[in-house]
């Protein structure tokens, strides 16, 4: 297994859909290649950072937006 193949199969490894014999080859490469090991750690980290950095929903709907939506619905009901 090369570094390029590790990157190609990383998603399947991460999703645990890689066949057993390929997992062994994959992990064998990781044990010998610091760069790929760091890359896998950072791939995991970026998934965590993506979810953890998202701005949460506002605590409530801004009043102007809420009014605009209800007005639009009222207008649509009139048609």
């Amino acid at each position, binding site marked *: 297994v090369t*570094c390029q193949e590790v990157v190609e199969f990383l998603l399947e490894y991460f999703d645990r859909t890689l066949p057993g014999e390929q997992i062994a080859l994959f992990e064998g490469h990781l044990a010998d290649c610091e*760069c790929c090991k760091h890359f896998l750690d950072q791939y995991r980290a970026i998934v965590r950072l993506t979810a953890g950095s998202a701005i949460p*929903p506002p605590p409530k709907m801004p009043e102007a*937006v809420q009014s605009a939506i209800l007005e639009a619905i009222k207008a649509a009901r009139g048609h």
Partner: protein
Amino acid sequence: MEAFADLVNRDGPRMLAVCRRLLGNDHDAQDAVQDAFLSAFRSIAKFDGRSLLSTWLHRIAVNAALMRLRKNRSEPAAIESLLPQFSEDGHRVDSVDPWSLTPEEMLEREEIRTLVREEIDHLPEMYRTVLILRDIEAMETRQVSELLGVSENVVKVRLHRARIALREAFARRMKGALP
């Protein structure tokens, strides 16, 4: 009408958040949420109760945001400069340095969370959309493939490339910034 006002209050903030993530600004996000509620109002009779009402509304909001993205679609930007390079024998051209902080330590710092959001916003739209729907909204590959009208394999490839590109963009920004 009162029931709808309750729905706007209850589900609107979450719908606003996902539209903001997909569209990148408050103005378009608010318009998309308005589109979504209008669309829900017109098709409420079609709601079959198989999913939660809030899940149904959330999906309508995602759809409304995606429609706006399609309308404003620009030329697809290249992502290749953020993908790893390999020599002919499949070995890396550049080394990968370890990060000194764990994701949890990084997430405690607002400047790092901002940086991650900025780099997500810089990803080309086709990759950013999949990344947001899978890794932030936690939708399944099948759902994302239905929403985008592409195969599940395409969703997987885009997600993988988006994560790899984001890792690289983030690493470049963080170089020297971490202790």
